[in-house]
Each structure stands twice: as structure tokens, then as C-alpha cells.
């Protein structure tokens, strides 16, 4: 009985609202006429193809990049926290400021050539979504690096990997072989769900696609977004049908990927224990790119800050004609959205963390699967759909425009990310520590507070920081639930930016990053190992 109680917090803030929201929104999805309309949409197939392409390629590339980075820094796992704080929208804006035909790169290249008009490059909004893919890779790689690093920062895992590496090397395997065959597989086994989250995100992203993706055709998520936002019921229904299609595509894709992995397992296992390479390959210097990533992110932030303070800045000038702080004045003139965002982020991240930990402590590991699937499922749904469902729920309960509604709207995705990030490390915690402590006469709570949680502080803080960042960036469900009564930073940002004032957009992009950045840096600092590893 007590076990079941452990599920209660998550049930209240996640499972129940999710189920009710879906129940309220599903009837609208299943209209036949809407599906017919969707099939008649002239851009449907192009959009679907584009979505699959950008989603898959970006996920695969992110994984490869993350593994390469980790391989190059096995002894001193990189700290990706600061990079995660940059909201995806801000990254897309910054990247496009860099590579668009009137962007910084073009202006630098224009110098020796003496161009007076921006070149006719298709660097952003390109036909195949390469710019969008690049933006996704830039955003997702640090996330995966962060997931891997949290594992490597665990003392027990780190020691185990060290020992295994030494053994493997003594058996004649070079460092590259050791990483690929021994360490990487064990890392991947523990980060399946974060990878699923990455794939789901790439396939459903809307705001990045709007900024830097193509329009003809746009991604499927964009089409759905436009339709769902339409006031006309028939078009709205078409959008809902699109959601069903997209979600099914994602589930199918995950199933196919899972199947391929399973089918390929005999071959991959054979390879794992295969004969040693003749070359004893060292880990290539190409993996030492972490510094470059940091540099790139810094450049984007600086560009955003710079843009936020610039007046007219025609091509090919390298510097704007004037500097003005009017964008920042506007942003800071009303402090309420910032405060609202901060309080919501703090509250939801802590609640999600507490609820998840209670679940892990009380429920059997076999029960995790349901939560993980639901969390991944949530992440696969376009936020507009779940936002609408929640909104209907709040409407029925009469709580639209209240603080409770705002909390519930924000906490849902936060729980999903926190749970996914924490499940692997938390469950992987060596049970023997507990038995040791019990053998020393320590009671459960003391054990938790003094042994388990401190040992898990890196993943716990990491999950908190991610949850915080996710909450800060929440837009659609929050905007719906607020019903005009509350404003958060993203709500302000989107509305004010629809006027196209690039300085204002950049200012908000930078502002949205500030709070999560502080939290990430704090989390990183607090989770550093107490002693340098021996």
C-alpha cells in the first residue's frame, strides 16, 4: 500500500492531468473530414519528408558528435550546463543572425569582395532544411553530452569504467577500441530515453523551424501549428488530424528504430567482442572539439547581445550605425513576466524533482517503463495539442487564468524531462550502498540524505536544471492557460517580437537565457566531485 502511495505525487501532477487533457482533446482529433482535408493539403508529403529527414539526421548527428566529444574527454567529462541554458529559439535566432545572407559571416566575407548587397545564398530557410538540422544538432549535442557526463561523474561508474578500460587495454585494445566497445555501449544503455526525447523534439519542433527552416514546404509540425492556430473550426480540426498523424509517425519511427536495434544486436554484439584492430587506434584529435563548441555558443550569445543593442545595421556594415538600449528598456519596463517565469520554474522543477524521487524510492523499477513511455509520449505530442487539452480541462474546472492553471501547464513537460533524465542514474544506483548502510544501522531517511542523494547529486542537480530551463521556455500551454491574465517571459517575447523588431527579439533571446544559465552554472558548480578522481 505504501508503495502505491509513492506514485501519488506524479499521478496528481502528471498522469491525471495528461489523461484528462487527452480525453478532452481526442474527440476533436478523430474526425474523418479532417483527415480527408489533411490528405488534400498540397504540402503534406513534402512536409512529412522534410520532417523525417531533418529529425532523423539531426538526432543521429547529435549522437555522433556527443560521443566524439565524450571520447575526447573521458577523464574530465565536459560541463555542458551553460550551453543548455540557451533556449532553442534563441539559438536558432543567433545562428540565423550568423549565417543568413545579411548575417555576420556574409558581411565578413563581403569585405574582400566589396559586395554592397547581401549575396543570394540559401543559407537559412534552405530547401532541404540543412540550416534547421544544423541548429538542432547545435542544440541537442550539449544535451546528450550533459546526459553522458552526468553518468561519468558518478563515482561508482567512473571507477568501474576506469578499471574496465585498464583491463581492456591490457588485453591489447587501443583507446579508441576501448571507448567504442566498452564505454560507449554502457553509456548508451543508460541514455535511451534522453535519446528518445531528442528524436521526439527534432520531429515536433516548431519555433526553430519557423525561424530558420524552409517555408515551401515547411515541416509537418509547422503546418499543424498554423492549422491549430486558425480560428476556423474545419482548419483547426485538420490540424488536430495532423497531430494524430505526426504522433503516429513518431511512434512508428521509434518502433522501427527499436526493431532495427534489436535485429542488429547479434551483429553489434559480435563486433563488440570482435578481434582487435590492427592499428591500436588512438582517439583522434578530431574529438577535441569541445572548446570549439564553447566558442561557438559564446559567439552566438555575444551576437545576440550585440544585436539587442543595435539600431539600423544595413549590409555590408560590420558595425551597426548606432547603439541603442531601447529594446532592453522595453524589456525591463515591466518586471512581472520575469518574476512569474522565475517563480514558476523554481516551483515546477522542485515539485517535479520531489515527485520523481518519491516515485523512485517507493515504486519498483519495473513500473518505470510506464512513466518513461508516457513522458516520451508527451514529448512527442505537439505542445499546442496538449496545451489545448489542458486548456479545455481548466475551462471545465473553471480555473483558466489562475496561478494553479499556470503551475499545472508548466509542470507537465518539466516532469517528463526530469523523470527521463533522472531515471537512468537514479535506478542505476548500486544497491550495495544501501545494504552497506543498513548493515551499519543507518535508517532509510538518513541513508538517503547522507549517502544516496549526495552521491547522486550530479544527476539530481542536472535534472533540476533541465527542468528549470524547460519551464522557463514554456510557451504554448502557458499562453493558453493564462487566458490573458498572466504573462511570462516567453509570452511577452513572442507577442512583442511578432512586430519583427530584431533588436527586441535578440534582447528577449538573451533574457530567456539568463535565468537558466545561472541555474545551470550553479548546478554544475555544486555537483563537482569532491575530490579529484584517483
Amino acid at each position: 500500500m505504501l508503495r502505491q502511495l509513492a506514485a501519488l505525487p506524479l499521478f496528481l501532477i502528471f498522469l491525471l492531468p495528461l489523461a484528462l487533457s487527452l480525453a478532452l482533446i481526442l474527440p476533436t482529433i478523430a474526425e474523418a473530414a479532417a483527415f480527408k482535408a489533411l490528405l488534400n493539403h498540397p504540402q503534406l508529403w513534402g512536409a512529412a519528408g522534410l520532417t523525417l529527414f531533418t529529425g532523423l539526421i539531426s538526432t543521429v548527428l547529435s549522437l555522433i558528435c556527443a560521443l566524439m566529444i565524450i571520447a575526447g574527454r573521458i577523464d574530465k567529462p565536459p560541463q555542458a550546463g551553460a550551453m543548455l541554458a540557451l533556449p532553442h529559439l534563441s539559438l536558432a535566432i543567433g545562428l540565423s543572425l550568423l549565417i543568413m545572407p545579411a548575417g555576420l559571416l556574409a558581411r565578413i566575407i563581403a569585405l574582400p569582395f566589396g559586395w554592397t548587397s547581401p549575396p543570394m545564398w540559401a543559407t537559412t530557410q534552405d530547401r532541404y532544411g540543412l540550416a534547421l538540422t544544423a541548429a538542432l544538432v547545435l542544440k541537442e549535442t550539449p544535451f546528450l553530452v550533459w546526459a553522458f557526463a552526468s553518468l561519468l561523474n558518478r563515482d561508482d561508474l567512473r571507477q568501474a569504467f576506469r578499471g574496465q578500460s585498464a583491463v581492456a587495454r591490457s588485453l591489447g585494445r587501443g583507446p579508441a577500441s576501448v571507448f567504442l566497445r566498452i564505454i560507449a555501449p554502457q553509456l548508451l544503455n543508460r541514455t535511451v530515453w534522453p535519446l528518445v526525447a531528442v528524436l521526439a523534439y527534432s520531429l515536433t519542433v516548431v519555433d526553430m523551424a519557423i525561424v530558420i527552416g524552409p517555408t515551401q514546404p515547411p515541416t509537418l509540425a509547422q503546418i499543424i501549428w498554423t492549422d491549430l492556430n486558425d480560428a476556423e473550426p474545419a482548419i483547426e480540426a485538420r490540424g488536430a488530424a495532423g497531430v494524430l498523424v505526426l504522433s503516429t509517425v513518431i511512434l512508428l519511427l521509434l518502433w522501427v528504430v527499436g526493431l532495427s536495434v534489436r535485429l542488429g544486436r547479434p551483429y553489434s554484439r559480435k563486433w563488440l567482442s570482435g578481434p582487435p584492430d590492427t592499428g591500436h587506434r588512438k582517439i583522434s584529435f578530431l574529438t577535441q572539439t569541445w572548446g570549439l563548441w564553447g566558442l561557438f555558443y559564446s559567439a552566438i550569445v555575444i551576437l545576440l547581445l550585440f544585436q539587442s543593442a543595435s539600431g539600423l545595421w544595413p549590409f555590408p556594415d560590420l558595425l551597426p550605425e548606432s547603439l541603442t538600449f531601447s529594446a532592453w528598456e522595453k524589456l525591463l519596463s515591466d518586471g512581472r513576466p520575469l518574476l512569474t517565469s522565475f517563480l514558476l520554474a523554481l516551483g515546477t522543477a522542485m515539485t517535479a524533482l520531489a515527485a520523481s524521487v518519491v516515485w523512485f524510492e517507493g515504486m519498483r523499477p519495473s513500473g518505470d517503463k510506464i512513466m518513461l513511455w508516457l513522458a516520451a509520449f508527451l514529448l512527442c505530442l505537439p505542445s499546442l495539442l496538449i496545451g489545448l487539452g489542458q486548456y479545455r480541462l481548466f475551462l471545465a474546472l473553471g480555473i483558466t487564468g489562475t496561478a494553479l492553471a499556470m503551475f499545472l501547464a508548466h509542470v507537465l513537460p518539466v516532469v517528463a524531462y526530469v523523470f527521463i533524465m533522472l531515471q537512468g542514474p537514479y535506478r542505476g544506483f548500486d544497491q550495495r550502498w544501501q545494504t552497506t548502510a543498513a548493515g551499519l544501522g543507518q535508517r532509510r531517511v538518513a541513508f538517503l540524505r547522507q549517502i544516496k542523494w549526495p552521491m547522486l547529486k550530479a544527476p539530481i542537480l542536472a535534472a533540476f536544471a533541465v527542468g528549470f530551463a524547460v519551464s522557463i521556455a514554456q510557451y504554448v500551454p502557458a499562453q493558453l492557460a493564462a487566458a490573458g491574465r498572466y504573462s511570462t517571459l516567453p509570452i511577452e517575447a513572442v507577442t512583442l517580437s511578432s512586430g519583427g523588431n530584431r533588436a527586441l527579439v535578440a534582447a528577449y533571446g538573451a533574457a530567456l537565457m539568463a535565468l537558466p544559465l545561472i541555474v545551470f552554472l550553479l548546478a554544475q558548480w555544486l555537483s563537482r566531485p569532491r575530490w579529484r578522481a584517483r
Partner: protein
Amino acid sequence: MLNRRHFLALTAAGLSLRPAFAADWAAIEAEAKGQTVYFNAWAGSEQVNGYIAWAGEEAKKRFGITVEHVKITDTAEVVKRVRDEVVAGKADGSVDLVWINGENFRTMKTEKLLFGPFSESLPNYQFVDVEGKATVTQDFSESVDSLEAPWGMAQLTFFADGAKVAEPPLSMAALTRFAEANPGRVTYPAPPEFHGTTFIKQMLLEAVINPSMFYKPGDGAIFSTVRAVWESMLDGLHKNCWREGKQFPKSQADVTQMVADGELLIGFTFNPNEPANLVAAGRLPPTTIAWQHKKGTIGNTHFVAIPMNAKAKAAAQVFANFLLSPEAQARKNDIKLWGDPTVLALSKLSPEEQQAFAATAAPGSVTLPGPTLLEPHASWVPLVEQAWLERYGKG
């Protein structure tokens, strides 16, 4: 002392068949005192936001009404929110006043989501230019029926850097020739974005000699008679467009920014004074010029309406009436503040009031104006949008 305004008021009161608003109005104003109006309005422009803030302060001072500007991105959100609330039976709606027109108005009117009729009973409605501005009573060829109060005028206006564009193209045909001479420097946002749709509607109107057919409801059959011409005009333009017409920018705001960057040469807007505003805000160079097509460009009126489940209906009406007042309209018209054209007939105002509307030329104001063309009937919109997506939506 009797002046012209008082005379008009008395005449109107005497002649109108509508209930005498003088007595009713006092009751409404009394009820409105202390209420809060949640005014849902697009907030993408600092000028608009600044104006609404001013209007709110004035409303507080004069009528004891608190105005909360609910910043929204797309009016469709508000339509949906009202619809959802009405369906859910929520009596105290979250929206008291909404900035609206066109398709969204039509939707709300058809679904009976609006409170009213009310606008023609507003005391300041008497100054509205119903004779000279047809779009004040016909919103996208849909009869207003006093369900929304006119607020300002809009007209499709083009702009460019005068230093780069010596002779602005004054028609779609001229624009096409311009594109030929400047390949890759002209484009428009992709429909169904509002401005993109307007652009292709403008193209439609200029595709035929007699555009009156578009003011009646259209369907696939009627459309097919003009479709070929329209598409060939678009094809002709597209081949010299930005990215050869294979990709289009997302929004009018993007197009404006690209003009400021120099990536595009011609931009456009629905507010004829927006270019001047942008110059004043330092987002466009001072050499900016603005114009409309010689034979006219699409124009319309934008309105404010009250949802049927609004909580503060009285205050909403009082505020709407204030927005219609000569003083508020004059301030709105001021190119230094917002520059949105007025819906009032200057001839109906006193000489002092008229002075407040004196047009001030500023860098970027329209130097080559054109007449306002009526919006085609709303049924043409899905026809042209679908046709456009089919032909150009795949890149």
C-alpha cells in the same frame, strides 16, 4: 455656446430612429466606473502598445476604468478563446474588448459570439465617415451590423529606400518589371500569412479589368475563369523573386527586416504610416519612401468588438467610445506616435479638432498615394490560398 458639433448632435438625436443615447449613455458610464477592461490587442508594435497605454491612462482619469492590455500575437487566439468559453458556459469571459476585423470578425459574427448591436449607439459614432469610407460598414464585404466599432484605417502600402529605388513601381506589372531588373530583391511572405494573402489578392484584383466580380461570393467555377491569368502573373513575378520564388519569408515583419538589411529592395505594410514610424524608430533609413499603386491598393478598416460573454460590457463600450473620440483619433493619427489613419470624417468635426489631424510629412510618409480598393469577398480567400499552395507550396 452652440457650435457645429452640438448642432449635429441635436440633429442626430432628433432624426435618428435609434434610442436616444444621451440618457442610456449616462447609465452605461455610471456602470462602467470601477470596471476593468481586458483589451485583447496585437502587441507587435511599440507604437501601438504605447498608444494603448496612453488610452488606458486617460480612461482611468476620465471614466474610472482600468484598461489591461492583453498582448496577443494573433487575433485567432482570441476568437478561439471566446468560442471555448462560450461553449463551456463561462459567463464571465476573459475578454472584454478585442481588436479585430475581416475573417475573424466574420467567424465571430456567424457563430454569434459578439455582443451587440452597440457601435452605432456610441455617442462618438456620429463622427464616423460612413459616407466616405465604405469599409467602415462593410468588413471584407460582410455587413458590420453595429457589432464592431471602427477604430482605424489600413491600406496596402509599399516602401523602399529612396536612395536605391529611384522610380517606385506603381502596379503589379511594374513590380514584375522591377523584379526583372533587380532579380532576387523582391518577394512577399508565404500565404496563408495575412500580408501574403493580401498580396496575392491584390494581384488578383490587378489581373482583370473589372474587379467587381470579386466583391460577390466566389467559388471554384468562377475562380477558374481568372485563375490562368492570375497564375501567369505570379509566375512572371516569381522567376525573378528572392530565391526564385521557391522559398518565401515567413512574415511581413521578416520582409521589413530584410529590406532594412538590404537583402530586399521593396517591402510593404498595411499601415500607411508604418514606414514613417520605422524611420522615426531608427529601423529604416531616413531616405525611405512609401507609395501605393496608381490604380489603388486593397484597404480596409480595423475595429474593436465586444464578446457576448464579456464581463465588463459597460466599461468596454465606454472605452470603445473613447477610442472613437476626435481627441483619441487625432493622437492615433499622429505620425510621431502611431500614425494610424482615422475613421472619422474631418468634415464632421469642429475647426479646432480638424487642426489636430493636420497631416505632418515625415521621412517615410506616403508620397505617391493611391485610392483604396475594397477587399474581395471573404469567400475568395480560401480559393486563392489553396490555389497558391498547390502551385507554389512545394518549393
